[in-house]
């Protein structure tokens, strides 16, 4: 635990960690929605690069999960 200021009996950096992790959870949900969105878009309009767009969306999701795990361990 990083030592710092106290706020309502709680370490402020602990609160900050909770907020950052909550944000990252929301971001993971968002990246999941992006995958679904790209799948829908590719169903609606296929211009021959659906595979690349899917890879980008899945890579984005994996990156979001990685950042969450990394932040959880580091903070």
């Amino acid at each position, binding site marked *: 635990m990083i030592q710092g200021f106290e706020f309502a009996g709680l370490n402020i950096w602990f609160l900050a960690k909770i907020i950052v992790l909550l944000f990252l959870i929301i971001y993971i949900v968002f990246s999941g929605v992006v995958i679904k969105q790209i799948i829908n878009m590719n169903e*609606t309009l296929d211009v*021959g690069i659906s595979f690349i767009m899917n890879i980008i969306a899945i890579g984005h999701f994996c990156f979001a999960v990685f950042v969450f795990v990394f932040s959880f361990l580091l903070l």
Partner: protein
Amino acid sequence: MIFYHKQVLCYNLLKMPEIYNAEKNDSKLISNIHSENDTKESSENDLIDTLDSEAQQNRQSKKAFQPFKFESNADSNSRVFSSYCINPKNVNFYHKDSQEKVILLLRKHPFTNIPWIFTALLMFLAPIFVSFFGFIEIVPWEFKFVLFVVWYMITLAFVLEEFLSWFYNVNIITDERILEVDFVNLVYREITDANIDQIQDVTVEMSGVWRTFFNFGDVVIQTAGEVPRIRFEAVPRPDDVAKILRELRLEEEQEKLEGRIR
């Protein structure tokens, strides 16, 4: 007998010359009408022949009409990100008929991407300016690092969303209909289509310095369908788009006349 007839004729001529002449006049009149009718018929025939030859010429010109021949030889892969894609290959969309041919794929002009690219650039450079603020010194390095990564994730999400919005919000013109695909946000999409023969009026709107300079604008299509108006927003070469639509309408009318409707 012949003599008797001649006598009667002479009698008619002497007694009722006006009647005899009237008959003659009538016969002249009738012959005139016949000749006029013949003239009319011949002129009608000429007109039909002319129309036939014009229709044949139109057909030939339609066969020869290839407004897209200039770009048909271009590599299709290089035109995936084009905002004005003529005769695109490998383009499929929802509810596309097997025989339907995509003639034109339109996106917003690349110039419309400048504002969000500029914003993304500012977001990318923003962490450099944060170091000028004094309060950042009290933040532990772990938080600095994570906040740095989170900030660039937000930037990435912004760029991804804006790019997807540009890339997938398209207008499609096929040989049978026009489509407007609009992804308003992450979970809402709107697809509007109208048959070519439902198009009533096409208006090109091009206003402003940048639009005039870079030759892009709106094409407003008035239709007789359920959606009365379809707007192709900020598309490149709007005059060419309107011209293609006009020619497709003519072709559709010709198909109707010839009974070649699918």
